[in-house]
């Protein structure tokens, strides 16, 4: 892909880099840090995701214990 940037008089390559960086940010999909407008929905979202994280943490510990206990058997 080729990108052409036309600089105004007085603008430098550093300005071009900033323009590119700004443009690349605009291309991103909504980031993980984005929030809902209504705070209760953010709370619910965070609650469920943290439940999943907690479940995963416990699950991986249990799997690790299973592997250590029963490997080679």
């Amino acid at each position, binding site marked *: 892909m080729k990108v052409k940037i036309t600089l105004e008089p007085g603008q430098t390559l550093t300005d071009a880099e900033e323009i590119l960086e700004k443009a690349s*940010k*605009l*291309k*991103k*999909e*909504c*980031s*993980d*840090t*984005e*929030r*809902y*407008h*209504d*705070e*209760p*929905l953010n*709370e*619910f*979202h*965070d*609650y*469920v*995701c943290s*439940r*999943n*994280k907690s*479940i*995963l*943490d*416990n*699950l*991986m510990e*249990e*799997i*690790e214990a*299973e*592997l*250590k206990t*029963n*490997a*080679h*058997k």
Partner: protein
Amino acid sequence: MLISKASMDRIDQLVEDAYLMLALNLLGYSMISSEQRERIDELRPITRTALWLLLYRIIRLRPEEGYHRTDTIQNLLDEAERLSGNLIVNDTHIHTLEHGLQAMNEVIENTKADIKKRLRAKILEANRSLRQELAVQRMRSLDQKRKQEQKELTALIAALAGIKEVIQTNFDSAFTSVLTDYINDATMDRITAQSVISGRNPEDAVVFKTVKNDGNLCQWCRKFYVDADGEPVLFSLKQLQANGTNDGKPKSQWKPVVGKTHPKCRCQLRHAPAVERFLG
């Protein structure tokens, strides 16, 4: 064999049990299969379907009308328990609720399947690696073999962290998509009800989407929902409904829609009754 079939089956069961509790907590008893129920009968589970109903109520009542911003998630959970079975909803609301629950159930089922698949792949990889190593050097001492087994086991355990990270990211993304669809479907129900009460055609309701117009806003939501002055773009509900969904479509075919615009989208549908009154 480093990890036996029996051990793999036990790991599968650990995954099932872990996510059974999440399903119970979020979806309630009704979404659990009869086989799963037998495993948890002694737990006397509390249905959390009410939690989703509570969310529905939050969406239907704007914060200034009934929600206290100082409430904590625990207050919400407590209120959900109280609301269980007490919130009067019509057929449309039940449909939205059931669809939300089904979609969330899919997220949980897919997460379980994803974990099992990734774990099995790593275990098979470790078993194969050990077999190859031992086959190449048949004359190794027992002590050397044990060291090799321990090396493979250590690598396998180290891989668990990577699996956890991927699963967490995938879950967060899938859950955000389900939640945004649920929020916007429920908002559409509210707009429809308000329009009917005020004697207007629901399809002509004027709507917009609230976006977080910062550097992280994606180009699609910026293009669809924010005008050149940074103000929200207004649509009729009919326009958004006619665009259906962007699910499964290439980006070039995406349109402004009622539900999520793309995975992880958190833009909320809003009603603009003041604009409707102005337009007459």
